[in-house]
C-alpha cells in the first residue's frame, strides 16, 4: 500500500480543495453517476483499480506528468459516450511495470457538443495511437496531437461508430 499512498499524495497536489477518502467495499457503490473532481481510493478486488481520479479536461496533462514522474506507464485510453448527460468521458488507465501493483484510473468529462481535450503524447508516446483510436471512434479532438488522423477506420469514413446515436 506504500505506492498507493504515495501516488495519492502526489496527485493530491492537483486537488487542494478535495478531501481524498478511502472507500470501503460495502459503501463502494458509487456507480457511474457524476461526482465532484477529486481522488477516491477504491477496492482493487472489486474494481480492478486502486485509485479513481476525476479531473477537469485541462488537468489531464498535469496528471500525466505526475504519473510519469511516479514511474507509471499508460495502459489504455478509452472513450465513453453519455448522451443522456450530453457528455463524453475519457478514461486513462495507468499501471506500473513491476514492483508493487497499483492501477490508477483517471477520468475526465467534457461537453458532448464540444469534445476537446489536450493531448498527452508529449508525456507518453503510447498515447499517440490510443488518442487516435478515441478520435476515430468518438470524434473527440485531442488538441495539439501531432498526427490526429483515423487509425482503424478507413481514412474517408465520415462517422464516429462508438457514439451511442450512431446507427450503421
Amino acid at each position, binding site marked *: 500500500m506504500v505506492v498507493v499512498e504515495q501516488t495519492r499524495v502526489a496527485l493530491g497536489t492537483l486537488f487542494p480543495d478535495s478531501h481524498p477518502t478511502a472507500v470501503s467495499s460495502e459503501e463502494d*457503490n*458509487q*456507480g*457511474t*453517476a457524476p461526482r465532484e473532481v477529486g481522488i477516491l481510493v477504491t477496492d482493487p478486488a*472489486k*474494481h*480492478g*483499480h486502486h485509485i*479513481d481520479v476525476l479531473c477537469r479536461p485541462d488537468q489531464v496533462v498535469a496528471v500525466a506528468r505526475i504519473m510519469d514522474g511516479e*514511474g507509471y*506507464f*499508460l*495502459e*489504455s485510453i*478509452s472513450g*465513453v*459516450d453519455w448522451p443522456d448527460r450530453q457528455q463524453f468521458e475519457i*478514461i486513462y*488507465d495507468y*499501471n*506500473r*511495470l*513491476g*514492483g508493487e*501493483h497499483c*492501477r490508477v*484510473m483517471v*477520468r475526465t468529462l467534457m461537453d458532448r457538443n464540444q469534445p476537446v481535450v489536450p493531448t498527452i503524447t508529449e508525456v*507518453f*508516446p*503510447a498515447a*499517440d*495511437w490510443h488518442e487516435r483510436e478515441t478520435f476515430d*471512434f468518438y470524434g473527440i479532438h485531442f488538441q495539439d496531437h501531432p498526427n490526429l488522423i*483515423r*487509425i*482503424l*477506420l*478507413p481514412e474517408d469514413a465520415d462517422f464516429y*461508430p*462508438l457514439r451511442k446515436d450512431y446507427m450503421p
Partner: protein
Amino acid sequence: MTVPVSPRHDETFVLNLGPQHPATHGVLRVKLTMDGEYIVKAEPVLGYIHRMHEKLAEASTFAQFMPNTARMDYLHALAFNHGWALVVEKAAGIEVPERAEYIRVITVELNRIASHLLWWAAFLLDLGGFTPLLYAFDDREKIIDLLERITGSRLTYCYMRFGGVYNDIDDEFIKGTRDFIKRLRGRMPRLYHDLVTHNIILIKRIKDIGIISAEQCRRYGATGPVARGSGIDYDVRKHEPYSVYPEFDFDVPVFNEGDSMARYMVRMHEMEQSMRIIEQALDKLPEGPVMAKVPKVLKPGAGYYYSAVETARGSLGHRLVCNGDKNPYKLKLRSPTFSNLSLYGEVAEGMLLADALALMGSLDLVIPEIDR
C-alpha cells in the same frame, strides 16, 4: 546493425511493406521511407482487418460476446476467453469453483505453448529457415488435438463460461498432456536449441538487432515478452495475480539485452515455465464441479471495472463500464500488441530493411488483435 543515417531527402523513396506481405503475417502495412537499404521513417498503417468488436460488445449480452474474444488473438484465444470471463465475473461478483480455475490455467498455458511454438516457426520462416516450422507444427498439432477433445474447437475456442468452463477434463486429456510435456521436454534441447538457438546464422541475424530500452517500453506501454526482453520484470500472473496462479511455483524469465535475441530467449524459457505450471496444476487438480450456479441473464451493477490477464504477447486489459443493463455499456479492449507495435516506428529508424523484418518478427504480431 543500426547505423545512424542522415537522410538525403532528395533521394529517399517510399516502400510499402504489406498489407499483403509474408513477413507481416496478416494484413499489416508499414509505410517505409527508405534511403537505399536503410529505413529513414517507418509508419505502421492499421485497420485492414478491423471488425469493431467493441461496438459488437455493446450490442450483445455478456455471454454472447464470448465467441468474439477468440477471434481477436487466434493464437492465444483461451487467454482472451479467460480475460473476458474474469472481468465479467469481477463485475457480477461470481465465484468460480476451484477445479474450473485449475482447468482454465491448464488450458490457457497449453495454448500459450502452442502460441509460442507458432511464433517460433513463423519467426524462423521470416529469417529464411523452413525446417523448424515442421518441428514446431508437429508439436503444436499435439496441443491442438488435446484442446480439441475438451473444447470442441481447434483454434477459435469458446471454452470458458462465466462461473467456470464448458466441459470437464478427463483422464485421457490428463495422460495426453503429461505425455506431451514429456515429449516436448525431450525434443527441446536437440531440435529447438541445438538446431536453432545455438545456430550461428540465427545468432548473426538477431543478436544486437532491434534494441528496445526499458524506458522505451515504459513510455510506449509495451508488455509481455517485449518488456521482459528489455529487463523489465513484469508479468501480470505474478504482479497482479489472478485465477489460481499464486498457487504455482514458476519463474518469470527476464533478459536484459533488449535485442531480438533476448525476446527470442524469453519465449523459449516461457514454454518451460508453462509446462511447470501445467504439471503442478495436474498434480494438485481438485475434485468438484466445473461450473457455478450463475443466473441466465447477467446484470452487473453500474460501475467501472478493469481486469488484466497475461497473454502470450503481453497484458490484455478489459476496461468495462456497466450501467446495470444486460449489455456492456462500454468495453475497451487493451490489446497487448497494439501498444507493442506502437514503438516500432521509433526503433526501426536507421535500421537495415532486413533487420527491421527480424525486429518485426520478434515482436510477435497478431494483426486481428491489433485491429480488433
